[in-house]
């Protein structure tokens, strides 16, 4: 997941002007997202009225596809760019609001399982990615970035790690491009595999949350399966995100010990700086919901607000994916990323099967 929202064109602009610059892109996000919702509803009405059996295709897919078509045909005009780049902001706001749909006990139960499985998957995938990077003769720091991106949280983990291990811009761009391309592919393959294996909503959501890289893509892959699976995918992915700081710290210490990165002084401050703060927001809202701070209709309103925020996010995922840029990268980083992703998907699928059987999801 990309943590950052594109910086406004100039820091000299006043806050009011910066907000005005966001409006066209925000409107585009809303139009594309709503078009996806409209298409889903129209198809459902038509098939129901005509007694046609047709699988429900979620608005998520339509919004992403419409965004992809716009971005890769006519392109997104410059005037929309700043607003479109806010999709990560809506993703985080949506996740925090989604906390209202979890009782803290569920968060702790599923979060504990996610943490355990994420820990195992991360350890195995790091070892495997480094082996692969070595076999494909990739630069060690590029391999590190790919390993961090595919094991933890895609783009934001790469951005967090880049300065910490003094990696090149070019390496970071390659790693990000590979992770984004693989995230886009996961969006379409994961739901198909989940359905063919008849995974339960919880098992599928856990799998998507543990295996799909970017938070936006993991959320979308979960929501494409079912609403309940989307919820669990967000929780599992949020747990994984919480580990960013620890993994980046471990890499920073490793590269510093080899004299190829700056020594980390205050480790607690480093961890706090890299910790994704929206995880705390999610937990806080979940705590409020658990304590009965909201009535049932209020909880429904909060859940719907979260869905509207995600609608903007999914539109942004499509609008920000440039197939041309993804094709520009060398084949080696992509191959290492792809093989690594398949390995992680298989490992996490095995872990989820095991957890479903022995830990009662």
């Amino acid at each position, binding site marked *: 997941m990309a943590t950052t929202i594109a910086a406004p064109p100039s820091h000299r602009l006043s806050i009011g002007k910066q907000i005005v610059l966001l409006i066209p892109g925000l409107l585009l996000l809303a139009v594309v997202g709503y078009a996806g919702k409209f298409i889903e509803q129209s198809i459902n009405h038509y098939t129901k009225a005509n007694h046609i059996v047709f699988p429900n295709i979620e608005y998520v897919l339509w919004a992403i596809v419409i965004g992809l078509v716009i971005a890769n045909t006519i392109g997104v005009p410059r005037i929309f760019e700043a607003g479109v780049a806010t999709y990560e902001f809506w993703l985080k*706001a949506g996740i*925090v609001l989604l906390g209202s749909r979890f009782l803290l006990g569920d968060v702790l139960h599923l979060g504990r399982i996610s943490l355990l499985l994420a820990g195992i998957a991360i350890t195995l995938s790091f070892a495997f990615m480094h082996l692969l990077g070595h076999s494909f003769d990739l630069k060690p720091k590029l391999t590190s970035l790919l390993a961090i991106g595919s094991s933890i949280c895609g783009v934001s983990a790469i951005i967090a790690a880049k300065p910490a291990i003094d990696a090149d811009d070019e390496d970071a761009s390659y790693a990000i491009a590979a992770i984004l391309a693989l995230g886009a592919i996961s969006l379409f393959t994961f739901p198909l595999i989940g359905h063919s294996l008849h995974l339960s909503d919880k098992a599928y959501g856990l799998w998507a949350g543990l295996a799909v890289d970017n938070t936006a893509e993991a959320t979308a892959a979960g929501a494409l399966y079912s609403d309940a699976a989307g919820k669990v995918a967000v929780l599992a992915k949020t747990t994984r995100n919480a580990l960013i700081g620890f993994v980046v710290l471990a890499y920073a210490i490793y590269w510093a010990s080899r004299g190829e990165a700056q020594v980390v002084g205050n480790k607690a401050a480093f961890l706090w700086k890299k910790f994704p703060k929206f995880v705390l927001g999610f937990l806080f809202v979940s705590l409020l919901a658990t304590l009965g701070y909201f009535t049932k209709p209020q909880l429904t309103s909060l859940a719907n607000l979260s869905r509207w925020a995600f609608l903007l996010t999914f539109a942004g995922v499509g609008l920000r994916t440039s197939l041309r840029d993804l094709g520009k990268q060398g084949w080696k980083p992509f191959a290492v990323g792809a093989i690594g992703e398949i390995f992680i998907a298989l490992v996490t699928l095995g872990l989820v099967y095991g957890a479903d059987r022995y830990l009662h999801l």
Partner: protein
Amino acid sequence: MPETNANSKRGLSLDIYAVGLSLVLALLVHFNLLPAITW
């Protein structure tokens, strides 16, 4: 990729803005200052 050029400090503060906005919305919903949100 545009994300690589983004300022990490700014990204961090926007993380907090997202939490802030969500909490404000949660408060507005709690005090019934927003109409019921439908989907």
